[in-house]
């Protein structure tokens, strides 16, 4: 195991008041969706039994684990999933809180507080995805649902809220099905071939399936009429849940359910014929799948299973968060059985000496850190706090140490307030890399461009992620003028206003200054302009 990774995990554990273990054992957690090329994720408990206080409430930290990150899914086709492996194997620290968070807003606040402590180590990289929240949500009579991949803090309370709403809606559906006297055993794995009925339909999916020798199968869902289209969360219906299961287990492209038909090229006569062939009564629904025989059967089996669950309970699932906070089915929830020892990595003993050394070098907590920034770099307390809460603190320190000619308060303002306001203007500032930010401040420090130009440079870089700051300065014509250039410009302005200068003498300075600055703004230091202009005016008079 990477010793630095272990040290950081131990440090974080200490900040979360968790007790480090004497000996760390690496486990393999089976993950067979392809995101780990080995088929398992290596994970180890580093510390247990911590706690933090968030707004007066004590939140237990059950466990801190060190894991390896998985590959990121970047796309898929019907038969394959594409992963990027650049994140695979990167150390990842997982902090699990106890089940004591009672409302969505509190979840957001706790996530924020943990993030703040983690940032205090200055080891957390900036950027979307470097801190992710997995949420375990359960409600009374509902089920424990794990929501994966909530990347933005703002989304935590929203995702929790939606999940509560989804489970409540599922419980309502369950009650309605009960009232309609349906039992799970009434939903049968009886798949009827309806290829002949749909062969004449205009549905593109059906037509292309048939061309490839596939079939259309249907299954009756007794008493489900009207419930399939019931919205659980925005744009997620019971039918959607069934579709996701069918896609996962049956590798099919999707399903058609009776509540959304006629549509998709299947007309009402087709719908009636299918209902008749399945023997559907007034309250019955059905689901159709068109694919190869094997896939269609697997897909409908998954639909039947989901329908049976709808009658009985909210099923335990692992779900993935959408950008709007709603979620979709990802995979079934695994148990402890998928964990077994990693024999390639020997156990790591955490000695007293190591702990002591880490303890002595424990980073300061956010409040202390802000105080220190205030005094060391003469920042306002607001700016210091903003910096501590941003992802940019390590970068700030690097820039300030390197670009000595720039005021720390200016750097802090750009990294916190200015970047955020650019973001609000829809400038994709997330494209700007740390090295580009450093370049921009370097150029100011060296006098190659004015500090007023930094925002324009960053804006340009946001739209030209492959560019460098030097390039931006040139493209935007923001390079500082040399003294000679400046003198030439001043001479030209003064000459073309000769009469005015001669009439007004030294009082002409103000107006001349405006004219010159109009031409050189962003490319010259106003103090230098004043100086040169003044001496030029002297010359003219004498």
């Amino acid at each position: 195991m990477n010793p630095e990774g272990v040290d950081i995990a131990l440090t974080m554990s200490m900040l979360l008041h968790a007790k480090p273990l004497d000996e760390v054992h690496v486990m393999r957690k089976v993950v067979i969706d392809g995101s780990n090329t080995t088929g398992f994720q290596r994970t180890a408990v580093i510390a247990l039994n911590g706690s933090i206080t968030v707004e007066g409430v004590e939140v237990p930290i059950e466990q801190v684990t060190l894991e390896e990150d998985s590959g990121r899914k970047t796309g898929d086709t019907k038969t394959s999933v594409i992963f990027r492996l650049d994140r695979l194997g990167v150390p990842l620290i997982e902090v699990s809180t106890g089940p004591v968070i009672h409302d969505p807003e509190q979840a957001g606040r706790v996530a924020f507080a943990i993030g703040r402590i983690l940032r205090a180590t200055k080891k957390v990289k900036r950027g979307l995805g470097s801190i992710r929240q997995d949420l375990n949500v359960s409600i009374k009579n509902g089920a424990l649902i794990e929501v994966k991949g909530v990347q933005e803090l703002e989304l935590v309370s929203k995702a929790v809220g939606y999940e509560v709403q989804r489970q409540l809606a599922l419980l309502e559906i369950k009650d309605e099905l009960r009232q309609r006297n349906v039992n799970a055993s009434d939903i049968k794995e009886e798949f009827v071939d309806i290829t002949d009925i749909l062969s004449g339909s205009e549905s593109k999916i059906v037509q292309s399936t048939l061309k490839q020798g596939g079939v259309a199968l249907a299954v009756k869902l007794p008493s489900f009429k009207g419930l399939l289209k019931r919205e659980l969360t925005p744009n997620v219906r019971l039918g959607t849940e069934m579709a996701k299961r069918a896609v996962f287990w049956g590798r099919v492209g999707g399903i058609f359910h009776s509540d959304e038909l006629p549509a998709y090229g299947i007309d009402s006569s087709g719908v009636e014929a299918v209902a008749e062939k399945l023997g559907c009564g007034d309250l019955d629904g059905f689901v159709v799948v068109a694919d190869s025989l094997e896939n269609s059967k697997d897909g409908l089996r998954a639909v039947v299973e989901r329908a049976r669950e709808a009658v009985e309970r909210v099923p335990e699932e692992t779900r993935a968060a959408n950008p709007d906070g709603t979620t979709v089915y990802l995979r079934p929830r695994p148990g402890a059985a998928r964990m077994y020892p990693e024999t390639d990595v020997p156990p790591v003993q955490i000695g007293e000496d190591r702990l002591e050394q880490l303890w002595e070098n424990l980073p300061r907590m956010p409040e202390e850190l802000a105080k220190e920034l205030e005094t060391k770099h003469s920042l306002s307390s607001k700016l210091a706090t903003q910096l501590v809460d941003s992802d940019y603190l390590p970068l700030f320190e690097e820039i300030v140490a390197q670009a000595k000619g720039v005021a720390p308060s200016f750097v802090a303002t750009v990294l916190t307030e200015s970047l955020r306001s650019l973001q609000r203007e829809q400038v994709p500032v997330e494209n700007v890399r740390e090295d580009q930010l450093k370049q921009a401040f370097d150029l100011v420090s060296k006098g190659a461009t004015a500090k007023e130009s930094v925002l324009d440079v960053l804006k340009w870089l946001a739209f030209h992620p492959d560019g460098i700051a030097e390039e931006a300065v040139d493209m935007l014509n923001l390079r500082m003028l040399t003294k000679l250039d400046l003198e030439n410009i001043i001479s030209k302005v003064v000459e073309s206003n000769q009469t005015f200068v001669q009439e007004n003498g030294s009082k002409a300075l103000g107006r001349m200054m405006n004219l010159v600055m109009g031409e050189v703004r962003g490319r010259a230091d106003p103090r230098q302009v004043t100086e040169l202009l003044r001496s030029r005016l002297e010359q003219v008079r004498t």
Partner: protein
Amino acid sequence: MTVLLLEGYHGGVLQKLRKSRAKIGSIIRLTSKSGEVFEGILIPRSEYSDPTHLVLKMKNGYNIGISLDRTQKLEVIGEGEKPHFTKPSPPASHAGLPKVSIISTGGTIASRVDYRTGAVQPALTAADLASVVPELSSIAEIDTHILFSEYSESIGPTHWKGMAEEVAKKIANGAEGVVISHGTDTLHYTAAALSFALEGIPVPVLLVGAQRSSDRPSSDAASNLTGAVALAARADMATIGVAMHRDLSDHIIVAHRGTRVRKCHTSRRDAFKSINSDHLASYNLKTGQIELANEAAKRDRSRKLVLKPRFDQHAYLIKFYPGMNPGIIDSAVSTGARGIVLEGTGLGHVSGHLFDSVKRALKQEVPVFMASQTIWGRVDMNVYNTGRDLLNLGVAPLEDMIAETAIVKLMWVAAQTKSAGKIREMMLQPIAGETTSRTLAEAF
């Protein structure tokens, strides 16, 4: 017995556990001096671990190690389940399938994991195998035999002899194909050895291994075994071969000729490559289709198998490197070498400062052969002066034979004859497809 019940524990921890009557699998509660409480199932410990920690599996599946020094109290609060493997029912046999014998020599080509404790148990009986790789019972009628259990690197000429004799026995008993499971590191040496030891083999004999052990989801054990059994059962060839993954995906298992195959990667599943030749046959795991890719002797049960299982270990493979001490050749000769294969550079060269030693070896009737360390390609010692000089000294070039096959062949040849001249002659004569007169461009 107590030691087994507390596998891997020794010293102070072992005593403490014994005193508390704890066993592997017991549910244990530890209270630390600072009042922390840990609960979990006692897990076996690796034999190299220290005597001061014990390992518990917590309810959530994670293992943790707790130091005894920090422990105030150790109680057994319950008996957990012991790691156990239910005996699978014997496979349903399909009448009329070809008979394939599986001989196991070590490596865990197939094993089962007890996910609670992480214990791994090799699956070696026919029933075990069928439960782990159920496909097998629809491909062939399988019988299994555990010949020995050795790590690949510990296998040598005595094991080759044992394997050759066992194969002959299986064929005499009616096997229509033989599969030998074997650790992968020296799989190709064994394959070459059997190629020479089993003359006139009437059915295919395929060695198979796994680059990833079967406790990993990325394991190639089951798919390689399936491919090997299918090829042994059905491919119309009668050759010694190695059956492994063709590429990274679980798609095609290829059989390489035993004398022309080499492990070329530490860990990839397609580590085995046919060198200077095409593979023999391939098996498509999805369609079950077999394709023959190279000319090999056809199956013929009437062909007489001649067993020549002896090897003489007084044979040396010496790899040349810049700055090499020539004394290593003299030392080989003085320890009774009956032949030396030099693994030279490029087309077959060693530095001039070795010439005297080479001369001395040849003078003492120790034949010296040349293979190339480039792995692929053919030696040609007529191109440069050094090569011509070595030829003049009497070094014999081994065409496109790979160095690993060359040393195995030399051990075998040395056991077949007493004469140095005959050794030289047999080394240059193709016996089991180890050289060809023409190396195709596609073979690289």
